[in-house]
């Protein structure tokens, strides 16, 4: 599927794995941000990634619990950075350039200091 093909947002985009240009995992599409005004067609503006995006899909008590444990970070992935969607969402750019993989990269640097890692 290409970026400008019609699609069913909930079943075909939400909860899919996001993979960047270099084939690295960059999280899951936790929610979608729509853009538009009353009377005009809605357009997908961005995919949202991070605990701040998926925690609001839970019931109230669980949302608060998840936010306390995982934080409220949300990263926005502009729709025009998507190359294709085929079971996974492939980006045309690197995850870092969009602010994805921050935790992963920080931990990776820490782990590199441990012997034999």
């Amino acid at each position: 599927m290409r970026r400008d093909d019609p699609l069913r947002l909930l079943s075909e985009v939400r909860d899919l794995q996001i993979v960047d240009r270099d084939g690295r995992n960059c999280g899951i599409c936790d929610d979608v941000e729509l853009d538009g005004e009353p009377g005009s067609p809605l357009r997908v503006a961005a995919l949202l990634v991070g605990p701040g995006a998926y925690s609001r899909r839970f019931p109230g008590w669980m949302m608060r619990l998840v936010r306390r444990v995982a934080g409220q970070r949300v990263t926005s992935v502009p729709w025009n950075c998507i190359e294709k969607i085929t079971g996974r969402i492939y980006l045309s750019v690197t995850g870092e350039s969009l602010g994805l993989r921050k935790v992963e990269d920080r931990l990776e640097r820490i782990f590199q200091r441990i012997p034999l890692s």
Partner: protein
Amino acid sequence: MGGLIEITLGIMTAVGGFVDISELVFAAQAGSRFGFALIWVFAFSTIGIACYGEMSGRIAAIAKQPVFNLMRQRLGLHWGFPTLIVSSIVNTITCAAEIGGTALVLHLLTGWPYWLLAILSTLVLVVVIWVLPFKWIERSFGLLGLTMICFAVATVQLHPDWHAVAAGFVPQVPRGLPTKDLVVFAYFAVAIVSAVMFPYETYFYSSGGIEENWKPKDLKVNRITTTVGFGLGSLLAIAILINAAILFRPLHIDPQLPGSAALEVAIPFGTTGLLLALLGMLFAISGAAVETGLSTAYSISQFFGWEWGRYKRPHEAPRFTIAWLATFAAALGIVLTGIEPLSLVEWSIVFSIVVLPLTYLPLMLIANDRKYMGEHVNGWLANGIGWTFYAVLVIAAIAALPLYFATQGGQA
């Protein structure tokens, strides 16, 4: 050569995953209590795990989707997240049972304190996973675990009545049992289904397929490993059951400790047999500890879309590494509280079966989705077996907890 290596993965999953501590305990107890009458449940469940294993491998090769990506995508957050939580708890309890079992076997071999051996074996497993390339871990545990074949050799040596053994493969409920014993029989049947179809086996197997970048040409190897590999594991478990029926049943011995199963080889082959049986059990159980520990890390990493993989160095998938380290730490913590490994086995069995329907539903849905699977979509055979077992699993999941309490974990 490449095909042979992949078959090794199948054999390891069969030996390390099939004959783990729960198989040992339940096969030996089933044989000593009900003779050959529960053989058919092992055989029947093996068809189920072979079917779902094949399906998960096929999905890995064609749709490139690991189980917990599928779960998130098909069940959504509302069902997927609770499934993740419960299956992580179940995996951790199972991992604790395997570590406890490893420590018990080592205790029999060395006489050292149980708690010390639990700590040492966890440390060794963590260092082995951290340092060695995964291929090495897979081959060492897989090949050393094959020592378990001594149980099958013991079966031949014990000269069972092969007609009676063959009759055990026919579905049956023993006649003339009082209601109380029938309920225990039902508990054992459900426990064996759960032990054979442990959810971590498919998490582990399909994740391996994705990491090894399986393609449509690998489907044949997938089919062979899930049928022959799992079949071999099942035959070993059945051998343990047959030996227990011959040796323990006439003496009214209830082999509750995993170590008792080693006597099945010690009686016909003496000290050498005992040593081989204990070593086989050690490698099979510790192999299963590795699989369960890593499976929790797979589940969490795939659900949240992190980097994951046992072929990556620890720093290349840092959150995956933290997840498996935390699983081993939690499992060791559970063992050190002093809970009996047998109780851990029972809990993991009962809670596993509750997770199974939620694990296999996304598999069935994707395997039937032509958009993902193209021409490799489920055929009538896979669908027939898959949905039949799905119904069996739902019934077993509903019955598991009441049976567990009614029989006090099979002790009644």
